[in-house]
């Protein structure tokens, strides 16, 4: 379970996150939606302490993270995998080597690495491309390699920061399908940050709507009530838009 307690973050005079509290249950797919600058990426980056909160606590499975340092925080990060809008792969390494680096960092014994990497690549459907370089892959394939790298250490949580923003609709659907399978097959808690309502609607169970560095509202997507949620969320966006705060629905 991930809990944020009154976390705040400033960049100079800009208040990116203002006293946000949030609770995400184990095994759920949780969406965070908001316009550019709403603070959603900063919020998710505080969950693995890529950004240190100025105030408040980040608690994962009962352990407060923001006072941890050095080796312990690096260990924790290995169980909180992350994928980004840009795939952030090593362009000078093959697909296989890009995935194996996560195992090297986690000090997984050498003899186990090849099998784990291939298992992970098979899961995302790229085992045939293991010897290719990222420059030879499409945008969607690169993102799937990034996913393979993220799940190879069997993390408890997968943080997805705008994972489909630079992809076309078909590729977006493929990537979201992989993300959903990770949740279903391995029970990994998934947090997806997006500014696209379609992305959130298609995979998430609960959604946090953010504006101006604050949680505006939390919504549930019920199995039979997608439309209810759709109207609700769009209503929020419209209201925010009319107030001039939400510039990118």
């Amino acid at each position, binding site marked *: 379970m991930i809990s944020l307690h009154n976390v705040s973050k400033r960049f100079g005079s800009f208040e990116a996150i203002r006293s946000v509290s949030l609770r995400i249950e184990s095994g759920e797919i949780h969406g965070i939606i908001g316009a550019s600058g709403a603070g959603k990426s900063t919020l998710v980056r505080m969950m*693995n302490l*890529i950004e240190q909160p100025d105030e408040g606590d980040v608690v994962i499975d009962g352990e407060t993270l923001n006072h941890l340092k050095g*080796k312990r*925080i*690096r*260990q*924790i*990060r*290995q169980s*909180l*995998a*992350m994928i*980004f809008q*840009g795939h*952030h*792969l*090593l*362009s*000078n*390494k093959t697909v296989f080597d890009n995935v194996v*680096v*996560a195992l*090297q*960092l*986690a000090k997984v014994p050498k003899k186990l690495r090849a099998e784990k990497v291939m298992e992970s690549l098979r899961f995302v459907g790229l085992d045939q491309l293991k010897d290719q*370089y990222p*420059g030879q892959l499409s945008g969607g394939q690169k993102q799937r390699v*990034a996913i393979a*790298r993220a799940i190879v250490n069997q993390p408890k949580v997968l*943080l997805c920061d705008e994972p489909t923003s630079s992809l076309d609709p078909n590729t977006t659907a493929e990537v979201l399908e992989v993300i959903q399978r990770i949740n279903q097959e391995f029970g990994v808690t998934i947090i997806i940050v997006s500014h696209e309502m379609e992305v959130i609607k298609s995979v998430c169970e609960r959604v946090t709507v953010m504006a101006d560095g604050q949680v505006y509202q939390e919504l549930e997507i019920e199995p039979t009530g997608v439309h209810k949620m759709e109207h609700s969320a769009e209503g929020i966006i419209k209201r925010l838009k009319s107030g001039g705060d939400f510039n990118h629905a």
Partner: protein
Amino acid sequence: MPDVLLEYQSEIWVSIGETFIMVGFSILAALLIGLPVGTFLFLCRKGQLLENQLVFSSLNLIVNIIRSFPFLLLVIFLIPFTRFIIGTAIGTAAATVPMTIIAIAHYSRLAEQSLLDVPKGVMEAAVSMGASVKDIIFKFLYVEARSALVLSMTTSTISFISYSTIMGVVGGGGIGDFAIRYGYLQFRTDLMIYIIIIMVICVQIIQYAGITLARKIDKR
């Protein structure tokens, strides 16, 4: 082979050997000290992993001062230091001292600039995977910047060859010094031209090798 080169063959080989020693030590110093210094400079920059304005500014200033020195003056300025380290300020061994110092400053700056080309996202991904600073340097930064680092080393090596021609002032010898002493001072212009041609060929080979290697390891 032209007669003049045959006539001075043994001296030319000795000079090439001296250049090889001076440039070789410079490359070694650039790799073993210049690269870590450049990496540290990069990591101490604003917004980087080990951000430290005081350390960055101090190191940056030292590198800039060394690189600002006209090389001939640096060689002379360092004579007491060279004598302290080597025991003498004259000869090829003594010449390696100022050469290694300029090599460290020169390559550290080029290495720092090469690392600046590594996408910030790669570092971010490394941190999110739980990489330590050492892991980030060796498993991410150097991997992504390797072709730029090779090209920088190529540029540096060519500069070191150029710097080595000055080392005659402290009896360092070398092929450039040979061209000045035997070619220019003894009015053997033809000899000087042949030596220049040899140096141009060497530089072309180094440049070609550097570009070929950089291209081979660049998979972007």
